[in-house]
């Protein structure tokens, strides 16, 4: 027993990722944790999207299942799992069966290299960012396969549209990424890195997030990536692959039940994946905000309180709404449930005030908070922007974003060269 505790505590104080330490068991634990966290995030995203969209459109959104519809995603999941699994008679069985698996695998595999903190990643690869882009580009294959195997018009057109879109926006995305990677090479040795942890450490060493580097070059590169990543995940306003009015549901029209929910899962985890690329490359990954302006021990103390305060704030919202629940006996279960949820959140918040815990998980908190900001942006886009037409989309990708990306890349390289050779010889 003592040895087990010692083993666990020896890991909890380790300063390496499980992959770098070569520890298979902890790597497995991390994979399970990431998978669990991702599933919870997708469930939460599902509820938040419906709720926020509803409030943007002056509706209430889901209200019936649980207090404020909190249990709605669980009800949805049960409904999807119990649905009949239909495969069109003329469909190509094997390809139809493989397609959702490929999409889900591609969406989840990329999280192997996502750095939630200097030690909180499954592993750190030398080719980290290349691996992420490569594996997430494999999901196009799944979409094309799904559209073709369904043997029906809407899915085929949806798949063609979505793959054309993903292939063409990948180019602009790659150029933006390259200009950020170029910035990592501004150190004494003059060599950059592709590893996700290395990129964040480069931002830490240079004391500047890459979004503010060589203003406005970093900002423009970030903007290109932010547009391309929405197109890459087929979300509004670039969601014409699944434009309901023209193509019913695009490439997954013929899918139902569990297979459809796999596509759903993959879409949301791909959104989280590209957001975490953006956070890692431009927004300083796990680093807390304002490391330069507000540095020193009092500010470190104040920022280390943030995770706990956030959870206490959520708990307070729960209690406030539990108090506002109708006082009818029929609502008693919901009121108690909401208050219980608030208690759980409050306990998590209190646990985060313990200095040892907060020092260990603070980086995870900042990373997730930044990613959550991007998730909110996705919902916001969907609530506000009208959908593009396909030729507008292609024009935007090839005639606006691509030249912009090339220009930013060349300018970044030029400014970096000047800085290395003339300003600091």
């Amino acid at each position: 027993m003592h040895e087990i505790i010692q083993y666990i505590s020896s890991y909890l104080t380790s300063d390496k990722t499980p992959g770098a330490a070569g520890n298979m068991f902890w790597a497995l634990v991390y994979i399970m944790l990431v998978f669990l966290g991702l599933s919870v995030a997708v469930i939460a995203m599902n509820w938040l999207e419906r709720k926020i969209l509803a409030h943007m459109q002056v509706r209430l959104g889901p209200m019936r299942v649980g207090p404020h519809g909190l249990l709605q995603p669980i009800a949805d999941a049960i409904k999807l799992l119990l649905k009949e699994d239909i495969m069109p008679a003329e469909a190509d069985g094997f390809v139809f069966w493989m397609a959702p698996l490929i999409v889900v695998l591609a969406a989840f595999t990329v999280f192997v290299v996502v750095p939630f903190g200097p030690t909180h990643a499954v592993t750190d690869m030398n080719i980290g960012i290349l691996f992420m882009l490569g594996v997430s580009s494999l999901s196009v294959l799944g979409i094309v396969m799904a559209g073709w195997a369904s043997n029906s018009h809407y899915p085929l057109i949806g798949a063609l549209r979505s793959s054309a879109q993903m292939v063409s926006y990948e180019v602009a995305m790659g150029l933006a990424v390259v200009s950020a990677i170029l910035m990592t090479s501004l150190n004494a040795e003059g060599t950059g890195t592709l590893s996700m942890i290395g990129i964040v450490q480069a931002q830490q060493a240079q004391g500047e997030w890459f979004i503010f580097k060589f203003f406005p070059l970093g900002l423009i590169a970030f903007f290109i990536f932010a547009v391309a990543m929405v197109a890459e995940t087929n979300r509004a306003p670039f969601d014409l692959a699944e434009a309901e009015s023209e193509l019913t549901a695009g490439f997954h029209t013929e899918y139902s039940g569990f297979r459809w929910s796999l596509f759903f899962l993959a879409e949301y985890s791909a959104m989280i994946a590209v957001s975490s690329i953006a956070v890692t490359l431009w927004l300083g990954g796990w680093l807390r905000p304002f490391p330069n302006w507000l540095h020193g021990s009092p500010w470190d103390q104040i920022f280390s309180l943030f995770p706990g305060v956030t959870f206490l704030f959520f708990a307070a919202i729960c209690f406030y709404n539990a108090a506002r629940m109708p006082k009818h006996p029929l609502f008693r279960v919901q009121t108690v449930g909401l208050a219980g949820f608030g208690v759980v959140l409050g306990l998590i918040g209190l646990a985060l005030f313990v200095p040892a815990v907060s020092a260990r998980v603070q980086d995870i908190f900042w990373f997730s908070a930044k990613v959550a900001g991007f998730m909110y942006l996705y919902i916001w886009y969907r609530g506000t922007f009208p959908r593009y037409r396909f030729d507008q989309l292609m024009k935007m990708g090839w005639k606006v974003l691509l030249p912009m990306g090339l220009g930013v890349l060349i300018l970044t390289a030029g400014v970096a060269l000047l800085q290395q050779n003339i300003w600091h010889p």
Partner: protein
Amino acid sequence: MLIGGIAVITRKNPVHSALALIVTLLAQASLYLMLYAPFVAGVQIILYAGGIMVLFLFVIMLVSIERSMKERQFNSQWVVGIIAATALGGLFIAVYFKGKNVFPEGVPAMLEGDNTQRVASLLYGQYMFAFEIASLLLLVAIIGAVVMAKKRI
């Protein structure tokens, strides 16, 4: 990889062939990984599996599949093919058994840690000229494709 390769040439449906080719390319990427060349493996996945094969599938899907399914699979060069395959296989086997002196065994000196940096310094240092010529070749190919595709420029 072998299974994928055989499936590429035996499947009647061109889409299945293309999918088998993807499996082959991914297996090749994993071979690169085992040779401690993660950068080459990553580029293999991005370019071949992610980029080129999607375009392949694109074109195949636009072509009518029913018609090509009915066509008889033909191969008038099977004699030459078999001879070439046997020669290559024989060469591989000979190298495997007798090649100890030609290709010395041993762990490669290049480490996984800075593979990408080494590739970059080789490409842009020692082999700069060859690299630029290759890019020029690609540029010529792009211009040629545009000229052929567009009637009026």
